């Protein structure tokens, strides 16, 4: 930090804001994010939904699109309406693509549509079609039309991509519910932001309680605390671990 000098091109206040970024903040919103997750859980899709819902805020009644390629559909199944967040379940449009090429086409067409709140894509593995060029196309379209894209990569390695934020997600043990400690609680995920444009990487434990996005405490954190996000009144975030 000492190396940064206060110059007009590099003002310290802006840097300080960036350093304190955490999930759920309105600033630094990425239109194209990738979430890497295993194909044996619904973690990636669940985290993408929670982040998308948190970013979209409430009151948005536009439909949203969920694109899956065939391998992703076989690995993790179809969206199940009774299990979706109640604010989203009636607005879902699902696209079952046969191949990654078709899925990318569907994603790009969906991002051009002004009537969609957000788009979630699920693509399995590292298909050849999802090259840096394809990824860049998606980024440009998403930023041009302002429709956020959350691309879930199931069982993929971290290849080249132009996504503005790249997360690695894995499940975290949930907090025991109050009335039945032996039952699984509200979902929680261990989220590692390993690459982002504009802010430093970090690790958080994100959670969802009903329709709220919350963050449970992490043991490795030096300064855990509860942060109420002013943008969405219903979302409360517990910042677990901010990098640096």
């Amino acid at each position, binding site marked *: 930090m000492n190396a940064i000098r206060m110059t007009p091109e590099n003002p310290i206040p802006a840097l300080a804001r960036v350093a304190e970024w955490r999930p759920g903040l309105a600033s630094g919103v990425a239109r194209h994010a990738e979430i890497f997750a295993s194909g044996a859980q619904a973690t990636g899709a669940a985290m993408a939904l929670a982040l998308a819902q948190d970013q979209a805020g409430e009151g948005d009644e536009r439909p949203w699109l969920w694109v899956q390629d065939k391998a992703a559909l076989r690995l993790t*199944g179809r*969206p*199940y*309406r*009774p299990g979706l967040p109640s604010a989203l379940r009636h607005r*879902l449009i699902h696209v079952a693509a046969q191949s990654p090429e078709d899925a990318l086409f*569907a994603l790009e067409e969906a991002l051009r549509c002004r009537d*969609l709140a957000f788009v979630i894509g699920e693509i399995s593995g590292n298909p050849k079609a999802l090259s840096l060029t394809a990824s860049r196309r998606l980024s440009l379209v998403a930023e041009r039309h302002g429709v956020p894209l959350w691309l879930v990569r199931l069982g993929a390695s971290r290849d080249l991509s132009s996504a503005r934020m790249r997360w690695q997600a894995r499940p975290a*043990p949930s907090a025991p519910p109050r009335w039945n400690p032996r039952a*699984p609680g509200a979902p929680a995920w261990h989220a590692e932001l390993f690459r982002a444009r504009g802010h430093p990487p970090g690790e958080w434990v994100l959670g969802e309680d009903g329709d709220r996005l919350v963050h449970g405490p992490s043991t490795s954190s030096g300064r855990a605390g509860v942060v109420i996000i002013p943008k969405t009144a219903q979302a409360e975030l517990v910042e677990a671990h901010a990098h640096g």
Partner: protein
Amino acid sequence: MSPPPSRRILAIWLARLALDRWRLGAGDAADALPLALIAETAHGPRIAQANAAALEAGARVHMMLADARALCPEIATAPSDPAGDLAFLEKLAVWAQRWGPWSALDPPDGVIVDVTGAAHLFGGEAALLADARALLAARGLAARLAVAPTAGAAWALAHHGPQNAILHFLPSSLRGGKAGEAIQSPTRGPGLLRCARNDEGEGWGVLDDLPIAALRLDGATVVLLRRLGLKRIGDIAGLGRDALARRFRTARAPSANPLVRLDQLLGRVPEPLLPVLAARPPLVQRRLAEPIRHRALLDRVVADLTEAMVRELEGQALGARRLELGLWKVDGEVLVRRLEMAAASRDGAHILRLFGRKLDDIDAGFGIELARLRAPWCEPLGLRQSDFEAAAEAHGTSLAACIDRLSVRLGADAVRRPVPRASHLPERAQKWQPPLAPEGAGQGELAFHARPLKLLDRAEPIAVLYASPDGQPRRFRWRGRVHEVARAEGPERIAPEWWRERSSVRLRDYYRIEDEEGRRYWIYRAGIAGDGRGGAPEWFLQGLCA
């Protein structure tokens, strides 16, 4: 009040269809010698069709081949092919829709086309007939044609009337002179016939002179009428209706009842063979001076058609839901490409873009000579400013346009939305429907139990390695990986739907579990030990929780 405009039916009779088909295969030279097409019957080969040389030599249709050989020993034979003829006729019926939007088979050797309102595309009915004659002759088919207000009359004139007859029924008030006189109009060509509509049943001019067989009666009835001395349609007209009705009161089939056929001929009773087209779908077409074979030209033609169709739709304040593009090829094939849209639209650029993908696999062959665009399914669409393509760059596309593009490339079944269905079974509790269709009335969802975020299409069996005494799994293997259950909630018992499933279907006990790493799943046990519906209960993993 003016009477409703009459319909115009074109009847095509391919008098020597089997022979023409044979000649197409064998060549013209083979036709110079006496030849008969043979049908095998129980009593030996019989002549199904004979060419001109054979007829001259004495052979007749339906004659036994042995008798024909006695008259003309050098007669050559070839097997007839009724199934092939019928298949050919079916193709021809589709091809004949170039003259009108609707056609019907008239087996074994006829086609009926509804040309109501389509004759102006060819410059009148006489020109339409000339066009049909020329095209059929170019395909080597001997055809007799007639246009009349009813299918019965057109059929009668094509089979037994003058060549290229065009028949009009005149209202009885306009008829002058003798009742039912055929009026030969010198100005409109020799084929033009007019026939006074006569409600008293006295006579119908030119139709009077046609033989009884022109009524499309079966053989037995024709023989019966001939034995009664009734040889022409005019003979029947002389009888009273009551007498005919009494004589044929037991004949239910129209082909056995001359009175029904007579009424159909004159249009007094509707003929169920032909549907009444109350509203004609918007239709535009381009006849091409030069058959086109290249994609760029085809795109141009389709763009023109689309533009014309959009104008047509705009004039009627309609939007198309389904479009059919028909491409008539020089070699007699018809290519049809259909397009269905999620919402009524008449945006030319949008339609064109959707058609672009459908035209990729067109094989033009020797060329396309006629292109037609129909909108068989339209919905009212008010005039308004619509923007699909130009403004899409700046403001994005609308949802309907986006869904159209997706379903054209991925298929209509690929783009759907889940809606609840009244069922206890988890996999039946949601069904899929088109994305813009309205959601049906439902009971609402009861949020008693947590449900997984995603459901596998088929529940996958898991191997329980260790279970606690109360039956809950403690350790299981799924997709080759061992999971230690850390926490579980259950059972939630869901009984089979006995009203639609067999009695041997087992109930399910669902558990929501979380393993030691926090992975959350939804598993169930099918059946309980000792329920008498199979062996030991099996475990399945059905859902992935958030």
